[in-house]
């Protein structure tokens, strides 16, 4: 029987250090996090940020160096067995044994979680159908494609209908079609089981599209925690990208408008109605101290709070001052922009530098 818990996952000061020769690697540094029942949370960060280490602690694979975590109301250290009974886990590798047969692995997993033979068989068959694996039931796991194996891993993680499903980079290595396919299955399973889902990923688009809540992790710390939309609106803003034969003048105009908008005087300057302009073009810097306006050849990029409202203001002001504009567009932010704003590095750069450091 499942106990009712208000918070499905509670993490306090969770820390993990690894000894590597004569140095200590601080993989996770004092995380605090609460996850409510039914939430779908993506933990986003570059390789080496501490995502998987956190997940390994929450799934009882490794013990924390300090701090505590409760999963489904059970402490991950003192009640590890109870945690394991509560959760489903899909790791980075292939969970199904390569020499095993697809159906056998599902039934074994059911038996492992205490299902009787009849229930384990029924459950295996249901999941084979649900995850489009029924035609592969008698095949050896080693003969499956990468996408099929991943779906089987998800099925194995769901056999016992867990309250909480942990997915550690579930779509890494899959092509876009297989990723989309896998996610449609996971989301459907989640809806049918009313599960709490925690996933790690370094795919920004995946976190953006799938998760109701995004926890951004870097160097073992949580640096942001909100919905993807709010993170993007609050931290990254929109980008207006304009090409001009006078990029310097255009950039100067954008900076002036931004400063005047901050003082409430942009409407007069741009000769547009105040209600249309106010607050729209306030510059959002990539991070404090960095310019909100950048020039790259003929291309001028302006970070603003509200792109669709700021663009006409900027164009009207440019026309009024005779600054030539050739093309102009508004680009909506991505989670990479959020990461850039927070850390000064893009997720891709961070991943590359972490790999180089490793």
């Amino acid at each position: 029987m499942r106990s009712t818990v208000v918070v499905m996952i509670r993490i306090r000061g969770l820390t993990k250090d690894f000894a590597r020769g004569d140095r200590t690697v601080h993989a996770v540094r004092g995380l605090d996090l609460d996850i409510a029942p039914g939430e779908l949370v993506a933990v986003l960060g570059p390789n080496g940020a501490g995502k998987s280490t956190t997940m390994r602690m929450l799934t009882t694979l490794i013990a924390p160096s300090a701090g505590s975590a409760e999963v489904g109301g059970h402490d991950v250290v003192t009640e590890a067995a109870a945690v394991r009974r509560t959760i489903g886990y899909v790791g980075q590798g292939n969970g199904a044994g390569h020499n095993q047969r697809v159906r056998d692995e599902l039934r074994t997993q059911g038996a492992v979680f205490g299902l009787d033979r009849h229930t384990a068989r029924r459950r295996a068959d249901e999941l084979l159908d649900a995850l489009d694996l029924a035609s592969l039931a008698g095949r050896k796991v080693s003969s499956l494609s990468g996408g099929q194996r991943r779906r089987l891993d998800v099925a194995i993680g769901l056999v016992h209908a867990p309250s909480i499903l942990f997915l550690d980079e579930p779509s890494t290595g899959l092509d876009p079609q297989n990723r989309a396919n896998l996610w449609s299955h996971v989301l459907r399973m989640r809806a049918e089981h009313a599960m709490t889902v925690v996933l790690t990923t370094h795919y920004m688009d995946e976190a953006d599209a799938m998760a109701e809540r995004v926890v951004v992790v870097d160097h073992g710390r949580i640096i942001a925690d909100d919905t993807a939309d709010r993170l993007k609106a609050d931290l990254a803003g929109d980008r207006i990208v304009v090409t001009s034969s006078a990029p310097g003048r255009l950039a100067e105009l954008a900076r002036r408008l931004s400063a005047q908008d901050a003082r409430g005087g942009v409407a007069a300057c741009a000769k547009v109605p105040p209600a249309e302009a106010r607050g729209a073009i306030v510059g959002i810097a990539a991070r404090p101290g960095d310019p909100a306006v950048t020039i790259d050849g003929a291309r001028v990029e302006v970070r603003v709070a509200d792109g669709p409202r700021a663009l006409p203001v900027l164009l009207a002001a440019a026309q009024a001052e005779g600054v030539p504009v050739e093309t102009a567009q508004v680009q909506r932010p991505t989670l990479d922009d959020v990461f850039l704003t927070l850390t000064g590095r893009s997720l891709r750069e961070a991943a590359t530098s972490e790999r180089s450091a490793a």
Partner: protein
Amino acid sequence: MTATLTAPVAPPRPSNLARDVGIVMLRELRPVLHDPFSLIFGMIQPLVFLALFGPLLAGSVGTAIGGDVWGWFVPAILVMTALFGTSTTGANLLFELQTGAHERMLVTPLPRSSLLVGRALKEMVPLSGQAGVIVAVMLPFGLRVDALGVLAGLVVLAVFGVGLGSLSYALAVAVRKQEWMFWAVQQTLLFPLMILSGMLLPLETGPAWMRVAAEFNPLAHVVAAERALFAGEFLAGAVLAGVLSAAATAAIGPLVGIRVMQRSAD
């Protein structure tokens, strides 16, 4: 994709070590059962060894072992088969360590000990079949065994195999990032243990230091116990020594295995 999922499913049964060991053992056995060729070759190999090595043994050391070559050699061949099987338990694990299948099992309610014991006991199933085939084949050639003694011998081997299999498992976990190291260590330890057990050649004709070393080799006591049990000598001192050696190995092996598993996580 019209399947309807029925969740939540039946509440889990309470933990039961024997059931969990059985689940692990059955999972390990399935690929073997699905592959009859490996089973058939597994049955034939000890017979080939007996056919080639037995006559040599009879001609060279027959008197040193009291003339009953098959009664001396058949139990030893079964110990050797169990030794090879359980000491390579870790090799099968290495692949699952690399792919992630082992990690998946660690995030289940299965106790760590069931993973060790279940994998080791899996080797005992084909071994029992091999024992039956070998005894049946060798009976016309003069082998005389006590049926109860053979069964008791298999139980002792199973107990010893649990310990050895767990140690093999621990070795695999400890050297999981350097696969070659597993084989280097396993082979380096296996052959001295075998030679110093009097399994293939009698130690009675060897130097004194070898006989002394054999006293500290648990495998030597297990081999002596198997020979006594196959002969129906249940009350022989060798049986007690062998049972104690097997039990000690079975106690130490899983402890080491679990400890290595816990340490490997960090």
